[in-house]
């Protein structure tokens, strides 16, 4: 996922290690290791909603017609919104067969289901005022539900929801987020985070060296102590995505080993 150009390569680290091994044990003692952290953040610029449509029937031909109609209605409903930044992309199709056997002792009747995922992508959301963005998201969710689509992140069917007195209660379930927010071009952010982490490590090392009446020498090694990116809720995410509308942080952590020199050394 990360290019070797932007991060200290394994090769480089190995080279440092070989170089260090070539030194004497005394030389190793004249070194200092510190950890530096860097963090930058960015507003998401892309919003995604995953939908499902389906057609299910005992007759396969009926299931196909239901599937076709469902997909057409959902697609047309979003076309009618005329949102320039909205892309509607049909995704994977699944076929499933199940046996419905409600009657005791009766022959089970197979049902064919055709399931279609649909991805809604709204781009340039970082350029939309927050109020307008919230309204647009609401419009997308309403359109999906009115058109008969299921929003995938919703772990329960609508039938299990009880709307009592305006309060939405999802039985035995914690309500799940419906929208994912993404940063499209995130690699420059990693560059910045590493730069900050290295600078942080250098500052720390200088402080420690000063305490020891030494001064910093060359960088002997760099370890990438963490590659994880944390979402705003503190849990690790695989890529730059969030379920909340707000800045997405990118954190980097480096362990850097500096040579320690006498204050008179190298002058």
């Amino acid at each position, binding site marked *: 996922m990360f290019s070797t150009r932007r991060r200290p390569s394994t090769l480089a680290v190995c080279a440092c290690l070989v170089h260090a091994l070539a030194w004497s044990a005394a030389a190793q003692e004249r070194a200092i290791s510190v950890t530096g952290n860097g963090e930058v953040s960015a507003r998401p610029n892309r919003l995604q909603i995953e939908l499902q449509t*389906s057609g299910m029937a005992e007759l396969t031909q009926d299931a196909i017609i*239901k599937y076709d*109609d469902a997909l057409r*209605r959902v697609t047309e409903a979003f076309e009618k919104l005329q949102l320039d930044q909205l892309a509607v992309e049909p995704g994977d199709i699944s*076929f499933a067969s199940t046996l419905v056997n409600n*009657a*005791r*002792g009766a022959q089970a009747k197979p049902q064919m*289901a055709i399931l279609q995922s649909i991805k809604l992508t709204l781009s340039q959301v970082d350029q939309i005022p927050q109020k307008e963005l919230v309204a647009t998201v609401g419009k997308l969710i309403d359109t999906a539900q009115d058109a008969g689509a299921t929003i995938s992140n919703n772990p329960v069917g609508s039938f*299990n929801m009880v709307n009592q007195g305006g309060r939405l209660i999802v039985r035995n379930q914690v309500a799940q987020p419906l929208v994912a927010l993404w940063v499209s071009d995130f690699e420059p952010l990693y560059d910045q985070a590493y730069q900050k982490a290295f600078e942080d490590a250098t500052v720390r090392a200088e402080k420690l060296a000063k305490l020891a009446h030494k001064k910093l020498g060359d960088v002997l090694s760099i370890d990438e102590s963490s590659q994880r990116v944390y979402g705003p809720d503190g849990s690790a995410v695989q890529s730059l995505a969030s379920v909340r509308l707000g800045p997405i942080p990118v954190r980097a952590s480096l362990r850097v080993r500096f040579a320690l020199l006498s204050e008179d050394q190298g002058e």
Partner: protein
Amino acid sequence: MALAVGCLLSCASQARAQIVLAAPVVASEENPNEPKRPFTLPAQKNEVAESLADFRRYAEKTTWERAFKALEKVQEADPNALTPSSSDGLYMPTRQVLRLALAELPPAGKQAYRLFHDADAKTLFSQAEGKDETEKLRKVFNDFFITSVGDAAADRLGDIYFEQGEMDKAAECWQAVVKWCPESSLPRVRLLVKSAIAEARGGHWDAFDDLNREVRQRHAEEKVVLGGKSLAASEHLDAFEKKNRPETRAAESRQPDLHLPVADAPSWQFRIIPQRDASAIAQVGMNWGWGMRFPVAEMVPAAAVDDQRAYLNFLGYLLAVDVKTGKLLWRSARFSDLAQKVQQNQYHYPEQYAIVVSGDTLWCVTRDVGQIGQHGQPFRIGRWEAATGKAGWNSQNINDLQQWNIMGVPLPAGDRVYVAAAKNGQGAEQYVLALQASDGKLLWSTHLGTHQADQTQMWHRRTAQPSLILAGGRLFVESHAGGLVALDAASGAIEWAFAYDSSMPDTNNWYNQPSSFTTLAPPILVGKTLYIKGMRSDRIYAIDVSTPKLLWKRPVGESSMLVGVDDENLYLSGEEVLAIDLATQKLKWASRLPNGTGWLKPLVTHDRVYQFTSRGIFELDKRNGDTVRLFRGSDLDSLGGVMLATSTRVLTVSNLAVTAYALSEGAGRDDATKSAQATAAIGAGRN
């Protein structure tokens, strides 16, 4: 079904391009070939059907003696009990099946039968005098119809039945001669005319039309002697029709569309219960510790409407609201403690409460509000003054009716009201009753069949509440459990029945049992074709009721319900709205709508289907199912439900409120809503 789809949908996001095959279900060990039916018709024992099969087999081999010997067991059986008349689920009274079996014999078979039985038949016919006349003629007609005196016996028996007012039986006698005795010397035109008059007197005007058409086409110039007078046959029937035929209302499929208002704001809204009470009722299954949703959690109260008032039967509390203003006009009692009463017991059966307005009278099926949810307490039928709420007679106070637990939506018709029922403590035995509208006198009761599951034990599922429709003097009772019965409305005699595929209701209950999406709608009769879809059936059937004959059947989702028929399509609703081409029975389109409650009552007009959902009223184009308009309205906290219409308003009834919207000015609005009202007022989300 909803659960299955939900499961599939939730799996689909994880499993890409997968094919999942569930394990096959092993057939019942008790009877692997014939699974138990959830509803059994009052049919003969199997041995009668087996004897008929033997008769047909021997007749095919022209071993006449054995064939007629096999028939003796059929002749000894109850002539009025039902026997399968075909392999497609139709049942006829045994006497008719027997007569048909004899009439269909080849000439050699008929000759042999006469050889065996002509002497007996002649003896019986000659002895048919005095008090034994009817019985002996009936014996000849039923058992020896194809003998040399069969036609004469049928004609005389028809005359007797006619004089006794048993019009269906009279017509049956005369038509049997017309149909099966081409060699009879009796004047055919006379039999046709008598038969037509009997059908009309019995209210079967469709049959009258057919017979009149035949007289006009084949016997236009012929005369008949009736009552000592010689009359031109065709002219006589026309004159009879002009004098006696009642006016009929326009077909429902021709209702013009509704013009929903531009703004969401209602004309008025009547909140049925506070939100906290609705929440309490919705949670009642949880509070009892079952962790399941009881039917009462998503119920929509029974509702009816006329041009002046909207009426509710909310678990036994009756009330009327002014259609123009939304003001409460009267109520049977305050119901501030309703939620508390609902939570005390679990045998609610909300689907059994019904209300119908007919002229100035409200007909309600209800039980005392002090007995809400109590096990074993029967439902009663009663009448109330629609304007004032003043109570009239109640079956609780009528001796002959005290043993009956009333079910389904009552069907008032003239001086009668028809209603389904079961005897107290015998919840599996299904009956239909005819009551005198003025005083509740029981006119007749007919046993229709037996549920496999006692309906009074199904507190955790919607029970099968029969639907009744009356047409042409014939009463159709759809059990919603796998059996439809056609009766003579005058006498209650079963004319024929139809057994259809239906799931066995799950009588087991367990903790955290998932609820199922269940809908229910009455059959629809268009001309001679009756469309039926039982509440737990995954088939829709079209039956020609004049023959009767199964025209076609096709699979549909079990959770779907019939909502309308027009010249081209049949419309179903439920989890999705569907249009099925009548000519090809192919699915034309499907439109999935948001689900809330299964207690739906959509409206179907000339070009539109309207459905009240949890997200507003969807107005669908009947041609393609596209949403023409989504009218959000003002009851978005609810689960959706029932739509009713008057000449000036469209009303939605949900679990929370009755909401009225003024119809926009538009051509044909009044006509539209009058017809729509006729359709909608028969029951709220029920039948």
